[in-house]
């Protein structure tokens, strides 16, 4: 009796899982405002970096497409800057926050994930790899980021955003 009931449940779950279409779903792990407050312990006003033609060309080179917007808001104090960026993994936008300290990433965090798969990029074990990464002369990260099987495009998107955050940090300090 128990067996037939368990079998029925299993078959019902299997049928449900096979018939359930895979939809992209927005998963919000933390709001940008909460992340900013967590990092700075206050609510600093946003600052702006405008992308000049040259900067647009470099961001295009990093991202593989034209920048989504021409002015980028960021938050910062004397030593650190915080960037909230968005990039498409496969089809949907990933929102991630990066804290940059003296030209190196201090913290990376996935704030919202909207792809149907690949959300393993939000795990701290993966994100910790970005800690300490800086940009080399070729605008690449100076350390290797190990990929995740089945989340390759999301991993690439995170790397592109990390490089962009580091470049934007350089721009903000050059002002």
């Amino acid at each position, binding site marked *: 009796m128990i067996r037939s009931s368990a079998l029925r449940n299993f078959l019902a779950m299997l049928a449900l899982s096979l018939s359930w279409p895979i939809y992209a779903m927005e998963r919000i792990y933390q709001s*940008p405002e909460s992340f900013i407050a967590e990092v700075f312990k206050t609510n600093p006003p*946003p600052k*702006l970096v405008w992308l000049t033609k040259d900067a647009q060309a470099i961001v295009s080179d990093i991202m593989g497409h034209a920048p*989504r917007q*021409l002015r980028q808001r960021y938050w910062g104090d004397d030593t650190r800057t915080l960037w909230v960026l968005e990039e498409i993994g*496969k089809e949907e936008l990933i929102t991630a926050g990066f804290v940059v300290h003296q030209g190196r990433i201090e913290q990376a965090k996935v704030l919202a994930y909207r792809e149907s798969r690949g959300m393993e990029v939000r795990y701290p074990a993966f994100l910790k790899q970005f800690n300490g990464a800086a940009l080399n002369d070729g605008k690449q990260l100076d350390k290797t980021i190990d990929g995740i099987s089945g989340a390759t495009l999301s991993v690439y998107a995170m790397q592109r955003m990390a490089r962009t955050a580091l470049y934007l940090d350089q721009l903000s300090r050059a002002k």
Partner: protein
Amino acid sequence: MSHTSRVIRKWHGHAGVAATLFLIFLVITGIILNHEETFKLDQREISTPWLMRWYGIQAANPERGYLMDNRYFSWEGEKWALGDTPLAGNAEQPVGAVTVNGIHYVATSSALYLFQADGQLVDKLEKQALPAYPVLALGKANDSVVLQTTSGMMASIDGLTWQKTSTATTWSAAQPLPADVNRQMTVLLAPGLTLERILLDVHSGRIFGRYGPWVVDAAAIALLLLGISGVWIYVRSIKQVKQRHKHY
């Protein structure tokens, strides 16, 4: 050769010829789909009218828009356009659009978009980045853009810093599109499907209607039978060769 062997060989040949076209179709669409990122299939949109009719997707018919700097801003679904320029839009319905200091502001209930005259997105402020939301209306007062929200009127000169205001404001209002603009917007805002979706539907047979997948299933089973009969013929031929060797 036995009668069974002759029949199987004959049907194997017929089925092979018939299945070749299907196989070519499956292989080509399958290979292309396997490299969708290389071919950027998800970024290429097809909005050919006959194909949209085939899918049962209604053509766009934008009837209203906001006049901004002598150009109309209009929308349909998640597509937005300003004059003849498509904009990076949003599925939310706009609640207002104004031009202040050369920047085109478009508001939805939970976001404010800033565009340059060439359609390039300058910035997008969403929810908590706004001084308050939902946004009920968008207007302008002197050099400021003004949001009407449930928490009152908020004004800004740059879309970054906001302050409460009670200044007399000209609120934007959607108006009927002139016939020529409606025709232009109908083309610009035509609904479309990504090439990836269309190829997936072709590959699975779904594009041919509710029986399409069954036809593809039947063809796939025919291919399976072709493989099985091919193995059977191969094994038989090996056995026959061995028997001939025994006789000699």
